């Protein structure tokens, strides 16, 4: 039977852990709120940009020069680039392992194709550093979530794509569906998936549509990367919040069980002492 002191010590240690997980949950909740605000703040831009791009594409539809745009040229996929978004920190439940598993599944699906990895976030980098051809890594960009970072990643991808170093570029990231669930998403960003739509107004074009398109497309890639970064950050904090909440609940359960056991042990030792005293007195009579 464990001694009372040992039991008390264990309860204290579990309580300490519970305090930490509770604190982490609070922090994740606060960060999640900020990440969600960022997603909402970026919406007016990305939605309108998509709409305008669709307009320009519709206006330029008859133009043959549009097809010459290097960012629309679709080639047979022999060399791929994967941009994988994981988190910088762990303790977010299955968030990172699910993402990495998804990426591995994607790669093995594309058997016989060369895959280059570009990792955003420390966890993905640490995993793939020795296992895949990692061409670039970005750590510590989720905290600030600046557009400039996304744009830089997009520019490198565009450069590789237009130099024919890769034939397609995919983003793998977690979409924030709700606090309870994230959805792993694989999205092709190069060749650019052009948003469909019809011309909503009869616009005057200051520049010829094909020229305008040439300017719009590179930025569109950056916007898609940026949107993915924001989604992934929100998903990460949501996953961490849920994981830490579960950990706190588990700790509470363990504390309850240990306390119950502790009381039983204490009771048993008291009962034993009483029996000793009583039987000692009875022996004297």
């Amino acid at each position, binding site marked *: 039977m464990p001694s009372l002191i040992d039991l008390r010590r264990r309860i204290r240690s579990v309580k300490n852990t519970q305090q930490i997980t509770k604190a982490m949950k609070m922090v994740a909740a606060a960060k999640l709120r900020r990440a969600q605000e960022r997603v909402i*703040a970026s919406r007016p*831009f990305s939605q309108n940009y998509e709409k305008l791009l669709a307009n320009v594409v519709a206006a330029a539809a008859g133009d043959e020069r549009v097809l010459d745009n290097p960012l629309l040229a679709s080639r047979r996929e022999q060399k791929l680039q994967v941009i994988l978004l994981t988190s910088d920190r762990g303790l977010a439940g299955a968030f990172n392992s699910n993402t990495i598993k998804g990426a591995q599944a994607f790669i093995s699906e594309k058997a016989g194709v060369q895959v280059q990895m570009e990792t955003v976030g420390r966890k993905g980098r640490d995993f793939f550093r020795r296992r895949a051809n990692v061409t670039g890594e970005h750590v510590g960009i989720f905290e600030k979530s600046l557009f400039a970072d996304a744009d830089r990643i997009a520019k490198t991808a565009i450069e590789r794509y237009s130099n024919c170093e890769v034939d397609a570029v995919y983003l793998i990231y977690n979409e924030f569906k709700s606090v309870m669930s994230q959805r792993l998403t694989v999205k092709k960003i190069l060749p650019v998936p052009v948003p469909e739509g019809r011309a909503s107004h009869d616009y005057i074009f200051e*520049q010829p549509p094909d020229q305008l398109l040439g*300017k719009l497309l590179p*930025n569109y890639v*950056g916007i898609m990367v940026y949107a993915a970064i924001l989604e992934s950050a929100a998903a990460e904090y949501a996953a961490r919040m849920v994981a830490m909440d579960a950990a706190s609940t588990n700790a509470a359960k363990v504390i309850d069980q240990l306390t119950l056991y502790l009381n039983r042990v204490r009771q048993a030792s008291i009962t034993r002492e009483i029996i000793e005293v009583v039987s000692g007195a009875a022996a004297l009579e």
Partner: protein
Amino acid sequence: MAATFELEIATPEKLLVKEAVTEAQLPTADGEIGVLPGHAPLLSELGIGVISFVTEGKRLTVAVSSGIIEVLPDLVRVLAMVAELPADIDMKRAREAERRARERLDTIKENVDSARALNALKRAQARLSVAEMNR
């Protein structure tokens, strides 16, 4: 015809300006355009420079670079990759950037980099003029 139209300036990070304005000047890739209420629908590439607009009798400015402009009769939407309000501009950094851009322009001859240096100079100057106008 309405006396004002809505001006929206958005960057990927946030919606910067959303106001009823009476007139606006916008830098396009091919030069400045002025917009009054009831303008014909127009799409144009946003250049590097200063957007200035009048709202409630006050003239305000924003420094922008690269993006797209959509003009509708009652709405002007500017989607800029970079846009800065006067309050966000660090004068010291902007001056420093201008000086560096000038230096680079002087040292390099005609080549690909000179266009980039010129753009950097234009951005720095736009920023400075916005910051100065609002002091």
